[in-house]
């Protein structure tokens, strides 16, 4: 539930903390993973159910969440498989993650009706009963005490709902399916939500939307911590949306200090990679639009890019070819430190998918979200406010830092275009959430956006609205704006990118 803290949020974070704790505390030579049986009792104590009909069901769901947090697939519910199956193999610093990334835990799903109209107690059996009059198929009639909808006849047009003067007719939808802009959620044989992995673009909005917490993504926190504990050098590339995510007292410098306290060598801003992306996309726009391509679509949101290519394959070449900011930043690290591991820390699930791509694997070893990072801090009892600020890495321009909010990417690219080719007009169209992106793509297909720069974002408000964030969108947007203003460089062109900016000495 976006922006709200509910029991679901609490459970998710408790799971991350348990997995992080074991990752840090286990005996590397002798781990039996039975710790995780105990985790389920710590998270769901006692004998009385709090969230669902039985403690046993609650714990069973926790155990599947633990498996996903370990990067493992969930178990089938109709055959015996120990909780710890596969965990020994997952206790590695190597990348383990495989699709499917986003999973419905079927027995946690309450099989919500997908599109269902029903009459509530608000109905007063009024004299006018407009509900019956507007129904095109005669599905509504007046019963003994209220109007009645014949579900076999109902065609879900919604006219009865609109007509009722008491709002007595309501529509129940399936929240996950309705949040899914890619229309990738259908049903299995038991009516429970099922993700069509061919249509899914891993945006993760279904995870946020499900009020029964039945959907979860896989994590790489265990593998990241194993890398740290086995003495590997790990660099972190942190997305521009990180500011303000860890509480009002956790300044950017303290967040960096906290990440280093976990055993990570150095943290660089991906906003810097965003500056590189802005330069490349501006160059591509000036070179190709309108002669080679009718318009250019930004590429930093992998879910938007994948969605655009699937939805309008004929326009696939109009999505910018440049590497995303994450990859640009990771490439730079690997260039200077080829044996180091790179972890991208960001707001989203989408980047986990991007890191599975063949072209990206050599550069990005792990992707974790701010929520997962918070689990790491909690597991190590790192009190961010008590740390001394680590030097503020001033590598990204204001425009690069603004990539975190919807509109920021387009503005950054436009600024470079106008600095390179003054007087060049760049009409811009933006869309956030895949529902809006779909509409924008339809306009593109109809030839209505020729000469435009299109910015697509899968998450509402842009990256600050990602499923792995901890802060409310409006609060996060303000923090991002303030951090952006604090940069010494305004646009990507101002940023002296050819400096040697990554000495390995710990800061």
């Amino acid at each position, binding site marked *: 539930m976006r922006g709200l803290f509910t029991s679901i*949020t609490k459970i998710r974070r408790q799971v991350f903390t348990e997995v992080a704790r074991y990752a840090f505390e286990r005996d590397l030579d002798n781990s039996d993973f039975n710790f995780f049986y105990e985790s389920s009792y710590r998270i769901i104590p006692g004998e009385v159910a709090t969230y669902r009909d039985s403690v046993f069901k609650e714990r069973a769901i926790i155990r599947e969440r633990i498996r996903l947090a370990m990067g493992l697939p969930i178990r089938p519910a109709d055959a015996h498989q120990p909780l710890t199956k596969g965990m020994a193999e997952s206790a590695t610093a190597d990348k383990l993650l495989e699709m499917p990334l986003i999973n419905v835990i079927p027995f946690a799903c309450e099989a919500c009706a997908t599109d269902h109209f029903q009459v509530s107690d608000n109905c007063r059996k009024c004299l006018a009963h407009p509900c019956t009059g507007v129904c095109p198929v005669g599905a509504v009639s007046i019963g003994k005490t209220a109007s009645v909808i014949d579900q076999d006849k109902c065609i879900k047009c919604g006219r009865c709902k609109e007509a009722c003067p008491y709002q007595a007719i309501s529509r129940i939808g399936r929240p996950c399916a309705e949040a899914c802009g890619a229309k990738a959620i259908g049903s299995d044989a038991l009516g429970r939500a099922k993700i069509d992995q061919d249509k899914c673009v891993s945006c993760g909005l279904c995870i946020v939307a499900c009020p029964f917490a039945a959907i979860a993504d896989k994590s790489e926190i265990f593998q990241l911590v194993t890398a740290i504990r086995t003495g590997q050098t790990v660099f972190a590339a942190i997305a521009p949306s990180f500011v303000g995510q860890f509480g009002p007292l956790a300044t950017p410098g303290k967040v960096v200090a906290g990440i280093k306290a976990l055993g990570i060598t150095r943290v660089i801003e991906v906003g810097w990679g965003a500056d590189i992306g802005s330069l490349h996309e501006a160059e591509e726009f000036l070179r190709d639009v309108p002669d080679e391509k009718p318009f250019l679509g930004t590429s930093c949101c992998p879910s938007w890019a994948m969605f655009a290519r699937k939805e309008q394959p004929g326009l696939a070449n109009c999505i910018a070819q440049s590497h995303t900011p994450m990859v640009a930043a990771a490439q730079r690290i690997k260039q200077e430190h080829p044996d180091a591991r790179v972890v991208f820390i960001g707001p989203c699930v989408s980047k986990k998918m991007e890191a599975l791509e063949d072209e990206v694997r050599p550069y990005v070893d792990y992707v974790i979200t701010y929520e997962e990072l918070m689990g790491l801090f909690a597991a190590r*009892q790192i009190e961010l406010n*008590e740390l001394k600020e680590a030097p503020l890495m001033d590598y990204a321009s204001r425009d690069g830092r603004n990539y975190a909010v919807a509109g920021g990417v387009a503005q950054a690219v436009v600024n470079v275009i106008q600095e390179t080719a003054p007087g060049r007009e760049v009409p811009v169209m933006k869309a956030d959430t895949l529902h809006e992106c779909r509409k924008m793509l339809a306009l593109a297909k109809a030839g209505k956006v020729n000469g435009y720069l299109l910015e697509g974002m899968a998450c509402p408000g842009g990256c600050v609205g990602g499923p792995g964030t901890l802060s409310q969108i409006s609060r996060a947007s303000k923090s991002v704006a303030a951090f952006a203003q604090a940069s010494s460089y305004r646009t990507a062109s101002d940023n002296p990118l050819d400096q040697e900016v990554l000495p390995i000495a710990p800061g």
Partner: protein
Amino acid sequence: MANIIVEVCSGTHCVMLGAMNIIDSVHSLDEIRHDMDQCREVEVRAVPCMGLCKGGAQGPFVRVDGLLIKGGESDRVMAAIMDRCAQSQDT
């Protein structure tokens, strides 16, 4: 009339368990409270770790005019503030 002071612990554990959402929900009370006459202003402060989580107690921890609310979800904090408003009206 003195302000109602709401101190929201903003240490790691409490932020993870929703401190920022509590702060936002307290701010959201402003619209409701302005309909109530003579209610005191609410001042929200994000305070450093109060140390109450050591020893296993679960946050988030909030003090409303000194009254400690443990493991307080937004609704309990808002209710405690509305309670203080009502009390101050009686005096």
